[in-house]
């Protein structure tokens, strides 16, 4: 606070303008402080370091978990023969299509349930039931209904994805401040304007929480459906590797899942920061 930099040289006589030079940001004494990209990478890097050291010293048996360098060379081989890219592309496509469908479904149902009592009575119960049933348990039925093709996989992933989007968006819509509802009434907003100006922007933080969970869920659901029956995709690659006891390929698959999960989460967080730039809170 003391070093307000004023660039007044002694020769000058006119009053110097206040200089707004960037000052070093002090760490906030209370509260968690700012998050940085570097800080977020620390935990994962420590994990990789422990893995490397464990493998190098022989603490980790290569038959249990392949050492990182083997994983890297295996990944390079898989890239060289094109198997990694083609399977990854399939997986990313499945996840992306299912994510779009699932998020759309989740938001639509949350709007129905969040903005009308009748809607809530109809929608909320079935969603809670769906939430209680594990995706894996639905697969036998899904195969009978939708076959074993792409539709089944995408539908299964989308059905897992919409749940966190629905839950969080619905809760946020229900939690819109009554004071703002009163304000909307006092300025005579129509129902449509109220939804557009008050309810939706007010529910946006909840939606983004749901979206972050949904991105992660789309990947985990992908593993489930790709390992049950598939002829392509990262999950298929890993299932095959298991059959032939190739742990290094399994680990490559795990690393790819992890990387894409992290990248997806970072992307959603970046979008969230942009969309919610009006918020100033401890986390930002």
């Amino acid at each position, binding site marked *: 606070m003391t070093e307000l930099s004023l660039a007044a040289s002694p020769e000058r006589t006119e009053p110097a303008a206040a200089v707004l030079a960037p000052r070093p940001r002090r760490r906030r004494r209370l509260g968690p402080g700012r998050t940085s990209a570097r800080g977020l990478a620390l935990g994962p890097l420590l994990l990789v370091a422990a893995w490397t050291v464990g493998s190098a010293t022989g603490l980790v048996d290569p038959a249990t978990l392949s050492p990182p360098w083997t994983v890297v060379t295996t990944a390079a081989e898989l890239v060289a023969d094109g198997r990694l890219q083609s399977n990854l592309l399939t997986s990313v496509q499945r996840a992306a299509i299912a994510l779009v469908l699932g998020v759309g479904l989740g938001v639509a149902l949350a709007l129905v349930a969040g903005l009308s009592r009748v809607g809530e009575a109809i929608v909320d119960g079935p969603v809670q039931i769906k939430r209680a049933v594990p995706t894996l348990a639905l697969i036998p039925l899904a195969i009978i209904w939708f076959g074993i093709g792409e539709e089944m996989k995408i539908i299964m992933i989308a059905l897992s994805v919409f749940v966190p989007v629905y839950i969080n968006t619905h809760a946020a819509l229900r939690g819109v401040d009554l*004071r*703002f509802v*009163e*304000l*909307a*009434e*006092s*300025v*005579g*907003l129509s129902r449509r*304007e109220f939804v557009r*100006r*008050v309810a939706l*922007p*007010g529910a*946006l933080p909840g939606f983004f929480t749901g979206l972050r969970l949904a991105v992660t869920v789309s990947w985990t659901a992908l593993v489930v459906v790709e390992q049950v029956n598939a002829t392509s995709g990262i999950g298929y690659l890993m299932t095959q590797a298991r059959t032939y006891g190739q742990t290094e390929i399994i680990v490559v698959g795990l690393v790819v899942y992890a990387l894409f999960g992290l990248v997806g989460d970072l992307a959603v967080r970046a979008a969230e920061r942009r969309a*919610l*730039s*009006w*918020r*100033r809170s401890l986390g930002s």
Partner: protein
Amino acid sequence: MATLTGQLTTVRARGLTRGFDGRAVLDRVDLDIRKGEFIALLGRSGSGKSTLLRALAELDDGVAGSGDLEVPAERAVVFQDSRLLPWARVLDNVVLGLDGADARDRGRAALAEVGLAGRERAWPNELSGGEQQRVALARSLVREPALLLADEPFGALDALTRIKMHHLLRELYDRHRPAVLLVTHDVEEAVTLADRVLVLDAGRVAVDRPIPLDRPRHAADPQFVAHRESLLSALGVDR
């Protein structure tokens, strides 16, 4: 609701009763507010002054009650908290619910009137408490209300900011001449700003007193002091 009895009356309430849980908070209140009249409504907490304001704002759906009430359709409310949508920029808050091609221009003009020209694109939480309340005033004025209802609008502001806001409110009132009902617990604020002061006690209008003092008003003026002291004693404060 819109059929007003006289050209000179903006608000007409007869036997207005409102209650919660079987207890009457407003008890057969009769109230006329003339066009362009500035009224301050005083009362101890629990006297029903906010209930009366909310009744006039028609924000009390579902509250039990009876009586006749005529209020103009063009009315605006200023709340104790500025109640700005935190996710909307200042100008968007001001023009909330307005339509018409010139809405944003009118919003800009209203912001300039409250001294916030150039802050149109700021987020509400970048503003100080006083600035936020000025945006709320701009949001009310841009609607050109016939009746401005203000529920302790300066209650959360510091003393210096409050004095500035008094000047601003009176200035805006002189320019636009809406009828004003200002709910406050601050007797000095009431005597400074209003042309007529009502004291609500146990749901009834206990005092209805015109304040015919010249402007600008000074709290040290003996007549000002006389009004203040008699209103304070009506509120049960004996000194």
